[in-house]
């Protein structure tokens, strides 16, 4: 197996092996000197010309050692036995390239994480280290010199989702002087935050702090808004995405519309607003979701518009001063070229109907948190009056149920993180505006944020009652005197250690946050992955929370899990910073770990065609062969392993490399070379 390719200096490699002590981390358990001696002696016939050990290979001295040997001893391959490649692979590769050796001709084997730290027996640890070095030596012989792929970065950025996180990202990037497209599904940007009344813990009004940001987006020269629009298709790769967007027909010509609102006023059709007013308010068939909507242009809802139902009416058209109404308008497909994408598509509220015993949808006076937000909002259906479903009665007692659909293995295991504070906020608003007796039914109170616990203390002092226990059911089936006409909250009071029935007039379910119902499709569309719960997966949960595994696609806000407003805003900015740094670099170099197809060997069987989640594999109908777009390829190697003709090869992880490593690990290389099979 030592002579099958011509890359070798006079027929054989000159390999240097470097064994790191890592202080005592490795040397304490592994006999590093013995390992180095053995490598030189036993693997000499496999091309090992130098084997050294050093206190800290990653130190500048250690690196210089390698550089020196490459220059003086003419090493063609380098094996470093030290820590995990995830720590220092880059370090040693750079050292090699400084000495003029292609960085990818260096192999790092982890005898710290995989040997010295997990093995107590010195002798055994030393043996295992030898085996691993032997594997690395065999593998490195088949490494090929590689050059990183360079791709140019398009300056424009696409932001999906016009909630507070998306808005923040858009503004940051636009203010840095780069063009931004922001796509929003609803007629206006603003997201969930626009629906809220007050924001915890400071209780400043959501609209007051949000609307300035919204109008800034609306007027920013670098920002192009595409509201009432959805992403249809995404092609390309980091720096060079091509995105198709469907702009739904508004039936209103935005060039002519002044947003005067006369059409809304004149529209005879009143419909329940199940989007912005979450079903407790009404809107017209032509509407803007709320007063401060950005953009100001209304939308005609063709499912409810009388004209679309019966073919007559057109009241709006008659009264529109600028003839902006256009019933002939159709959906429009817009194609954008962008370099980076920020996904800020937010969350859905847990559907409380899924817990029938809590009565939402069955019992009139059970409300969800979002319904309550709208009710409490001065611009909402009740102009801020907190009343029961009948529309006028003010509740005398209100129960707030925490963790509805969260921290519950029947629904979602995770904590929705905002419900505690939200519920405390509700408690405050209720007692402030109605003087009603408020009960909080909680499992634990979690107030870790800035000024959160202070707010909790404040609410405690407002004589809100806290019952610690999970609510069993909310029912109107009366049993005891005084229960008639009330909702009874049946709960185990775990502090008092007994069952309690608490009659209240109104129940608010603090429903948890869930991934968007179409999160999976979106993830697939953008080629990123979801956790089992359905939240988008970060590249690294701690160190890279706004990047994804797909280069050029970033995430911000609740897409990656429940977050409050400050956290979402911070993530918006963080994502923007990542995008801007890419744009500033102008071009990006990608790991050259890629798959490629040998055209002559490809039979066009099309086995591989459906295997690539990044659609990097195309079938050429003319040539009847499959082809790989190396910029799209993420290097997983699935197609390499799948190709029945062996026509696909993967750099960095070739069959030859892996098969050789297997033989090395099994120490076949110590036997007579005759028994060494020829890797393909």
């Amino acid at each position, binding site marked *: 197996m030592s002579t099958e390719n011509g890359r070798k200096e006079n027929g054989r490699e000159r390999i240097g092996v470097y064994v790191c002590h890592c202080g005592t981390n490795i040397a304490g358990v592994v006999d590093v000197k013995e390992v180095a001696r053995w490598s030189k002696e036993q693997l000499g016939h496999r091309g090992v010309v130098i084997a050294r050990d050093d206190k800290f290979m990653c130190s500048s001295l250690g690196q210089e050692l390698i550089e020196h040997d490459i220059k003086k001893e003419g090493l063609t391959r380098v094996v470093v036995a030290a820590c*995990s*490649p*995830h720590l220092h692979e880059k370090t040693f590769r750079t050292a090699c390239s400084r000495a003029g050796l292609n960085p990818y001709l260096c192999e790092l084997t*982890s005898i*710290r*994480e*995989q*040997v010295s*730290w*997990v*093995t*107590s*027996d010195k*002798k*055994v*640890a030393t*043996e*295992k280290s030898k*085996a*691993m070095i032997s*594997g690395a030596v065999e593998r490195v012989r088949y490494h090929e010199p590689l050059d990183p792929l360079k791709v140019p970065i398009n300056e424009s950025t696409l932001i999906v989702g016009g909630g507070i996180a998306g808005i923040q990202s858009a503004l940051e990037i636009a203010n840095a002087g780069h063009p931004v497209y922001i796509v929003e599904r609803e007629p206006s940007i603003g997201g969930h935050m626009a629906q809220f009344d007050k924001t915890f813990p400071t209780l400043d009004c959501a609209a007051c702090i949000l609307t300035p940001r919204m109008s800034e987006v609306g007027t920013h020269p670098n920002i192009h808004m595409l509201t009432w629009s959805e992403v249809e298709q995404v092609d390309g790769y980091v720096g060079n995405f091509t995105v198709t967007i469907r702009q739904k027909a508004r039936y209103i010509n935005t060039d002519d519309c002044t947003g005067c609102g006369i059409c809304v006023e004149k529209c005879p059709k009143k419909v329940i607003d199940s989007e912005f007013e979450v079903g407790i308010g009404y809107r017209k068939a032509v509407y803007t979701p709320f007063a401060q909507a950005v953009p100001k242009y209304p939308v005609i809802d063709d499912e409810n518009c009388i004209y679309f139902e019966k073919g007559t009416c057109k009241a709006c058209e008659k009264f529109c001063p600028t003839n902006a109404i256009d019933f002939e308008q159709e959906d429009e497909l817009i194609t954008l070229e962008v370099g980076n994408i920020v996904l800020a598509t937010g969350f859905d509220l847990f559907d409380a109907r899924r817990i029938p015993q809590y009565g939402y949808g069955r019992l009139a006076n059970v409300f969800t948190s979002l319904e309550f937000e709208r009710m409490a909002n001065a611009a909402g259906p009740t102009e801020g009056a907190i009343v029961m479903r009948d529309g006028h009665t003010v509740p005398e007692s209100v129960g707030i149920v925490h963790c509805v659909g969260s921290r519950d293995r029947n629904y979602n295991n995770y904590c929705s993180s905002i419900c505690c504070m939200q519920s405390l906020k509700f408690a405050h608003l209720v007692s402030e505006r109605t003087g009603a007796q408020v009960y909080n039914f909680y499992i634990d109170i979690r107030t870790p944020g800035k000024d959160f616990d202070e707010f909790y203390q404040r609410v405690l002092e407002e004589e809100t009652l806290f019952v610690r226990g999970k609510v069993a059911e909310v029912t109107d089936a009366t049993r005891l005197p005084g229960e008639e006409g009330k909702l009874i909250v049946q709960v185990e009071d775990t502090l008092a250690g007994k069952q309690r029935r608490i009659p209240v007039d109104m129940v608010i379910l603090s429903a948890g946050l869930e991934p968007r119902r179409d999160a999976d499709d979106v*993830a*697939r569309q953008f*080629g*990123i*992955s*979801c*956790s*089992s719960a359905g939240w988008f*997966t970060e590249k690294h949960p701690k160190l890279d929370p706004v990047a994804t*595994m797909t280069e050029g696609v970033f995430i911000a806000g609740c897409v990656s899990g429940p977050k409050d407003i400050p956290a979402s805003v911070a993530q918006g900015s963080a994502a923007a910073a990542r995008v801007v740094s890419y744009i500033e670099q102008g071009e990006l170099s990608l790991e050259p*770990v890629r798959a490629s197809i040998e055209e002559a060997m490809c039979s066009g069987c099309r086995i591989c065609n459906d*295997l690539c*989640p990044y659609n990097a594999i195309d079938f050429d109908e003319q040539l009847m062969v499959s082809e790989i777009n190396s910029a799209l390829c*993420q*290097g*997983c*190697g*699935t197609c*390499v*392993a*799948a190709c029945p003709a062996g026509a696909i090869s*993967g750099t*960095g*992880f070739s*069959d030859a490399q*892996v*098969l050789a*490593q*297997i*033989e090395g*690990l*099994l*120490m*076949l290389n*110590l*036997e007579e070379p005759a*028994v060494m*099979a020829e890797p393909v």
Partner: protein
Amino acid sequence: MENGFEPVMIGFTCNWCSYRAADLAGTSRVKYPPNVRLIRLMCSGRLDPTFVLKALSAGADGVMITGCHPGECHYLEQNYKAMRRVMLLKRTIAQMGIEPERVKLVWASAAEGIHLAHEITNFVDEIKALGPLDWPTAPRRRALEEIEQLEVEEVPA
């Protein structure tokens, strides 16, 4: 299990989850038997049955394949392909007189260092119970010196 038999095993790891789990096992100083020698792939989807057959025919007593939990693949869904390949491979090697238990598929996320260590420990015990494979085509393997049984224990880092 017969005494003194120390199996040699090959383990394939995913660069994004199980390899990092192995790193984590290291940093949290979890002790586990040294018999499994790991190979890093970019993804369990890179796992080619040829590798497994190669290992078994070349002297390995067992092969462990590890990847991200279903639905959490770094490359979205490639671990399902690995799973299907292993399922089919097991059926075939069973006909070849190799106990399918010698090939094991394990899911381990980057956070599951201890879990991975446990799985390795169990697998080593299972293979010890099965005894050496010593496939006829395999060249004489140099056995590890006899070592005492190692228990998985956690030592504060």
